[in-house]
């Protein structure tokens, strides 16, 4: 990812940079004429909360995208290799749009690349579900089902956001999420309602990832009620709790059709949205960021 594509910044065009330009000059020669987003940008605590919210959605997409690319060269069939890489690519594109927007919403000036490659684990706000290790193919499909069934209704609501950058990502993202959901549901049904072995492994995969879905519907840790309410009112965010009924209906239907049991239990791990991640996350991040941290000046 490079942010140049979307911002139109001519920094990459070294040949035409004026030789006399002052080093470190702040003048954005080719800066976008219009800033995407609100005409009336949020300010203060609202702006910080909006940034944290968009960052969380961008991190969800980025980290799940990275997990899915780990399947490349390991998928059970060539078609599934293409499928998982395609889903990962869709998510990466969404991540880019969301992280670009987060970078515009305050904090130190940052591009999508800066946010993806230069934050430490505590700065990432993705939910725990997306960082879970892939496990076998059944577990990956269970994770895809739970995530896509949440992301689809989320994007369907966010596409009407007053924030045009957010609405743009969500508009394209909604139909991508619908495609991802179809794909995951197909495999959960096929494996669940398949052989004894595929049924057993599909149930195990579902049991393993299920507790982590609860975090998707918890109140954002920044809000204390008031800020989230203000974001929702301005259509900058969706109340997480409002997504649970539709998510639950979708997932229960697929799980039932797959002849699987809906997992029970009260263990509901959370903390990703506050930067508290699982042990596996550190290893993921080390690989994701290794090139940029080793060769900070590397370019295409």
């Amino acid at each position, binding site marked *: 990812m*490079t942010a*140049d*594509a*979307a911002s*139109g910044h*001519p920094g*990459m*065009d070294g040949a*035409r940079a*004026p030789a006399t*330009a002052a080093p470190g000059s*702040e*003048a*954005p*020669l*080719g*800066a*976008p*004429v219009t*800033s995407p987003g609100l005409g009336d940008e949020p300010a203060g605590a609202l702006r910080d909360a909006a940034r944290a919210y968009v960052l969380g959605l961008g991190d969800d997409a980025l980290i799940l995208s990275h997990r899915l690319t780990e399947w490349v060269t390991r998928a059970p069939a060539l*078609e*599934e290799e*293409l*499928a998982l*890489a*395609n*889903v*990962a*690519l*869709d*998510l*990466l*594109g*969404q991540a*880019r*749009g969301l992280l670009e927007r987060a970078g515009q919403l305050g904090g130190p000036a940052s591009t999508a690349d800066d946010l993806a490659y230069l934050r430490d684990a505590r700065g990432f706000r993705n939910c725990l579900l997306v960082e879970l290790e892939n496990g076998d193919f059944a577990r990956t499909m269970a994770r895809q089902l739970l995530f896509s069934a949440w992301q689809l209704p989320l994007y369907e609501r966010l596409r009407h956001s007053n924030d*045009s*950058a957010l*609405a*743009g*990502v969500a*508009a*394209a*993202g*909604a*139909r*991508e999420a*619908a*495609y991802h*959901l*179809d*794909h995951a549901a197909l495999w959960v049904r096929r494996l669940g309602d398949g052989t004894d072995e595929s049924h057993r492994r599909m149930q195990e995969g579902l049991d393993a990832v299920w507790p982590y879905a609860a975090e998707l519907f918890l109140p954002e840790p920044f809000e204390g009620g008031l800020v989230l309410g203000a974001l929702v009112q301005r259509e900058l965010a969706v109340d997480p709790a409002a997504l649970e009924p539709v998510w639950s209906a979708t997932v229960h239907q697929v799980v039932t059709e797959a002849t699987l049991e809906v997992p029970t239990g009260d263990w509901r791990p959370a903390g990703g949205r506050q930067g508290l991640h699982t042990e596996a996350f550190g290893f993921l991040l080390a690989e994701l960021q290794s090139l940029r941290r080793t060769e900070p000046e590397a370019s*295409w």
Partner: protein
Amino acid sequence: MTAEPARSTACSSGAIPQPPGLSETDPSETELARAAALAAEIVDPELPVLTVGELGILRRVLPVACGGVAVELTPTYSGCPAVEVIVSDVRAALSAAGYEPVEVRVVRDPPWSSAWISPTGREKLRAAGISVGPPSEASDDSSGLVDLVRCPACGSLAVRRLSPFGPTACTALYACRDCGEPFEHLKAVS
């Protein structure tokens, strides 16, 4: 954004060299139309039989300050890897033609629709062995799964989907039951 004062400073100080023949005023209608035509001719690296104009991802060409132009593109899919190359190719083509500055913006809303592919583009895709339905066949289903698919080799409608995901984000894999031809289908999305 503090872009306005910074840009006007850059303009008047000559920090951006102005090529001869172009003033610091907005480009004329003719120049804009020429710029749009140049941009439309850029080839999609993922589907090299098509130009960005035929694929329908070129949205607008607008005048910007200092006599330059801005080109707006809409990617087919969020993660379309061809966008990087297309953005850079459009910028290079317009710069080579004397436009300065050239901005290329990625516009995501409204999202691209397969109905935006031109009739010429559809013909070229079919000739290249990639199936694509007419715009009226685009389904209302946001998933794009309900889609009329015709074998590009023999024209048969007796096809089966091998995989909903193809070698690029915008295609799916099919095979013809009649002639056996495996082919890509450009998914209908609206």
